[in-house]
Structures are given as structure tokens and as C-alpha cells.
């Protein structure tokens, strides 16, 4: 993890964002997926949003990327309110805030060679220069640790880790200032996951990128994030510097997540329901 930057301006700021989704079933009431969340991400900094499945992590990511407009609250990028930006305004802003998704294969078109896949976003945003473009693609390949020969490969020739590196190269192609990383390594095998984690750390160090890092895995977050916000049922239940939150978790959800990642030896919280008791017992036995 690069050292925490001293005092740059916030790159991203979420102010009380709320996202509602239609409920399951025909007459079901809408579900509040994100419930008044506020947080900031600074340049060179990683904020991790941590929570179990269904806690609202991915909805939060969609909202800050304006892939789904929040129902209330606002999102500021470099101090500017982007909540009500026109489609055209948003298009101009997209390159600066790029997503990296969980499924590395699903994000790539199966017939497109690696080199073309990396060039594609540059072309879509009309920044392609036939003179310098190919060199730019080569340098992106190098920056994400892919051998130049892999430029001609198809996604089906690549491992999961290599695909995710292509995904990261595509995101970097537009010279973003913020990456929104939605579980970027949780679909990868453990032995290749570490390499992608190291790559993300190095890129941040080199380029001062801000990361909003969505994850359910505290073991990973502890290594990669400067600050952490724990989500439960759409709300941030605990927030702080990662080391402090890991050392002295205040909320039972935080303890539960820490325990499940093997980072907490004590029994997690007071358990009420049978399910919670099961999880807490697991924490005890799962402690390594």
C-alpha cells in the first residue's frame, strides 16, 4: 500500500446517496439498496467498501459511476456535482472515472484480440491517434505486466488473471484519475490474485490514482486500502483508517467480516438468531 497522501482535494465525494431497487415479487415494496451513504476518496488513496452479499456495495459503485442515478443525495467528482449531469456531460467525464469489474472474461468481447480490446475505449472516446496509438497500447500492455506477444491473443487464450490485467489496461487507457474496482480479484484463483493485487498497488503508487475498492474480503482490504467503510443493509456502519478498524472493530458486522476472513480470534459480537450464532461459531473455529 502506498503511503497515504497528505492533503489532496477529494477526488470523489458521495453525499447521502440513496438507491432504491424494485423488490422481488410482483407486489413487493421497493428495497432501499443504498441508504444515505456519504464518503470521500482522495487522489492516491484507496477507500474500501466492505460488506457481505446484498449489503449495497455494488449499488453504491453503480451510483457513483452514474450507471444508476441515485434516488437522492449527490455525487461530486473533483468538487463538481455530477448528479444531474447531462448524458453528454457524463460522456466527457467518463474517461476520468473508470470501472473494473469482477468477471474478467465477461468484460471482454470473445472475438476481439487483446490489442484491439485495449484500443477500443480510446477509439470510442475519439482519442485514437493512428501515429502514436499502437505504441500507447504496447506501453499499456507493459504497465499491466502482460508480455507484448499476448497482444494478439483472444480472451479464450488467456487465464483469468491475464484477462483481468487486460480489463485494467482498458480502464487505464483513458488516463483515469479514479478507478472503481468492484470485486476485481474475487473471481481469480488465489495464486494469480496476489499478482493482480500487487499490480493495483504499484499503479496507484506510480500514478496517484484514487481507488474505490469494493470487496467482501477483509484480508485483502487490510493490505490494499488506506481507509475502510463497512456497509450493512445499505448503510455505512463503521468507517476509519483500515489499520484502526482491523485492530479495534466497533460494529458487530465488522467483527463478523474480520472473523470470516480469519483476522479475528475472539467470538464475534453477541449472537441472537441461530444463523448469527452459526456465523460466530464459525469465526471461532475458523480462526487460524
Amino acid at each position, binding site marked *: 500500500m502506498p503511503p497515504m497522501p497528505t492533503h489532496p482535494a477529494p477526488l470523489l465525494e458521495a453525499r447521502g446517496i440513496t438507491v432504491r431497487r424494485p423488490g422481488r415479487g410482483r407486489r413487493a415494496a421497493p428495497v432501499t439498496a443504498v441508504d444515505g451513504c456519504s464518503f470521500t476518496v482522495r487522489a492516491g488513496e484507496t477507500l474500501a467498501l466492505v460488506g457481505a452479499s446484498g449489503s449495497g456495495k455494488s449499488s453504491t459503485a453503480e451510483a457513483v459511476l452514474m450507471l444508476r442515478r441515485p434516488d437522492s443525495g449527490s455525487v461530486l467528482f473533483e468538487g463538481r456535482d455530477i448528479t444531474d449531469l447531462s448524458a453528454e456531460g457524463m460522456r466527457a467525464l467518463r474517461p476520468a472515472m473508470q470501472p473494473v469489474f469482477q468477471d474478467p472474461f465477461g468484460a471482454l468481447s470473445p472475438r476481439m484480440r487483446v490489442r484491439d480490446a485495449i484500443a477500443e475505449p480510446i477509439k470510442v472516446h475519439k482519442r485514437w491517434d493512428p501515429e502514436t496509438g499502437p505504441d500507447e497500447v504496447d506501453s499499456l500492455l507493459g504497465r499491466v505486466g*502482460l508480455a507484448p506477444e499476448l497482444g494478439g491473443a483472444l480472451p479464450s487464450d488467456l487465464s483469468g*488473471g491475464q484477462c483481468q*490485467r487486460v480489463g485494467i489496461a482498458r480502464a487505464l487507457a483513458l488516463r483515469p484519475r479514479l478507478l472503481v474496482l468492484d470485486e476485481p480479484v474475487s473471481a481469480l484463483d488465489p*495464486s494469480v490474485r496476489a499478482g493482480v493485487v500487487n499490480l493495483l498497488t504499484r499503479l496507484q503508487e506510480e500514478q496517484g490514482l484514487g481507488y474505490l475498492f469494493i470487496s467482501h474480503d477483509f484480508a485483502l482490504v487490510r493490505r490494499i486500502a488506506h481507509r475502510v467503510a463497512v456497509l450493512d443493509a445499505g448503510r455505512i456502519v463503521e468507517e476509519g483508517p483500515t489499520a484502526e478498524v482491523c485492530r479495534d472493530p466497533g460494529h458487530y458486522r465488522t467483527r463478523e467480516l474480520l472473523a470470516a476472513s480469519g483476522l479475528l480470534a475472539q467470538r464475534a459480537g453477541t449472537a441472537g438468531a441461530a444463523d448469527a450464532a452459526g456465523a460466530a461459531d464459525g469465526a471461532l473455529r475458523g480462526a*487460524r
Partner: protein
Amino acid sequence: MNGSPVLSVRDLAVTLPGRNGPVHAVRGLSFDVGPGEALAVVGESGAGKSVTARTVLGMAPFGARISGSATVGGQEVVGASAAGLRALRGRRATLIPQDALAVLSPVHTVGAQIAAALRSVRRTGRAQARREAVAALGRVGIPDPERAARRYPHEFSGGMRQRAVIAMATAGEPDLVFADEPTTALDPVTREHVLDLLQEMRERTGAALVLITHDPAGAGARTDRMLVMYAGRHVESGPSAEVLGAPRAPYTAGLLASLPERAPSATGPLPVIPGAPPVPGRPPAGCAFEPRCPLASDPCRSDPPDPAPVPGARDRLVSCHRRADVPEPPSALFADAAPGREPAGA
């Protein structure tokens, strides 16, 4: 191991048809599971762990060529008739899928679904199947099973649904249960919960468990023994605590060191195994891990290593030509992954 094994796999090889020719998914694999024992089968994508489980359950992918032997409760699976395999599944051995929502139908009551599962594995009257379904729900710790059986899956909490799935898979009281973890990591809280439920199920029914997983952490603490696979072959096996505590094969050492919760240092880059797993269908002539192995030497390139006992350790096998040269701690093999040396293409 007490008593004769409930599962005995000998020199199993499974070859699958692939787009670019045959894929040698499992090669010369042997292992046993004792009565009531829990074995974790650890491996990454392409290691052959799921193919092994499916083959043993008589559910090998279409077009698979199988050789060697796998016996469940003394009954041979390889070459068995469809009817023989049906008789085996659900009664002697069963598979627990881990995605509760994908296997439960929303339009039938939980009790009806378990009763139907039971009737599919053995001849039982409706009323009898119904009674057994209630008993199965009780066995997995669902309170008031009589009432629960009349409810629909959406009326259950997530945890209760997982219990119901386990009840459904184990209604026929099998001696051997396979649990195959999804490739995409479950969130850790859910995963712990599922592992707890499996443990409980084992304590209640005495069934043996084979837990198929790509993540050794966590699985190790809940299992008696562990089998690590790579590219379809045995890498290392033994008591889980010993394999996790003192891995003896370079691959296991690298895999464990790369886990963020086990990394030797709290900061700096994680140790990384260089390179990528071999392309399925093109296994190297020698040890499959050779292109990525810091200890690789000449014999590794020509001969695949066979499982051999670890001197001074009971019930431990390691497949590595240089098992005597693995340093202490074994993670030191991969510790020098400095940022500048980050291996390309992993």
C-alpha cells in the same frame, strides 16, 4: 483411518473432449476417504477437482474417457451401468450444491421438494417420503420441521435455505457427501456459515465429507485431511493442519504464501507464484508446475513426480522430485517478488 474407506480412488484418469483436442483433466489420482472423515480437495481452475468429484458420483461430463478405479462403499463406479450409478447417487454418495437459490424451486413447498428428491433416489410412498422430509429438516437443525416443511423457500431466511438444501441432499442418509464450492468466492460470512452447516451435518449423520475448494484457508480448519491438486495431479496430501502449517511441495507453499491473510509480511507486495497454470490439454511432459517452480531442475522437465511419503511424517504424501530440498519456511521460495520483478502474465 478407521474401518474400510467409504471412497477409494485408484489411479483415476479422466480425459475430456476439448475444442483443441483431448483435455487430460485428471491424471493418475489416488486417494481414500475414511468413514466420517472430512477431506478438503484444494485446487485452482483446471486442477481437476470438480471433474474428480463428478466422476466419482457417476456424473462425468459427456464424452469423458475414464480409466482407473473409484469405489464408493466397495462398489465400483468406473464402468458402472446407468442404473447402478442412479442407485449410488443420493443413497450412498451425494453432491451438495452451494447456491441455495439455484436449486430450490420457488413454487413448491420445501417439504415437497425434499420428498421429491427422496422419491427420486428410492422407492417410497408419498406419505412416507413426506415424513422422512420432515425428519431430514429436523436433522439439519430447522426448528419446528413439521411447519417448515409446509413453507416455501422465500419464507426462509438465507441461512435456513442453506440448511434446507443440505437436508434435501442428505435426505437419503448417504455415507459420503461432496460439497463443491463455487469458483467465484462466496462472501466470507456466507462461506463460514455453509462450512459450519456442513460440519453440523457431519456430526449429526456421521457422513464423510469431501469439500472441493479453490481456497485452502478456512477449509483446512474444518477438515481432517487435505489433498492439493494441480493440473489434474496429486501435489500433496496429509492431515490438514500439517499441510497448512508445513507445506512440503513448492506449489502448496506458494499458494499459501500468496493468500493475503497468511502472507509473511503485513505490508509490501504479496508473494506471487510466477506465470500461469498450464493450458488444459497441453500438460507438460514432466512436472506440471515446472515452468513456475523456483526449484525446478532436470528430472522435473522429463518425469512427472509420483506421490512419495514424507520421512518422519505419518500419512503424508508429496509429489515433488526435490521434496528434500524445500527450504524452511517453504514460503521463502516465493518471498522475493519485489515490485520490479513482478512476474509478467500471471
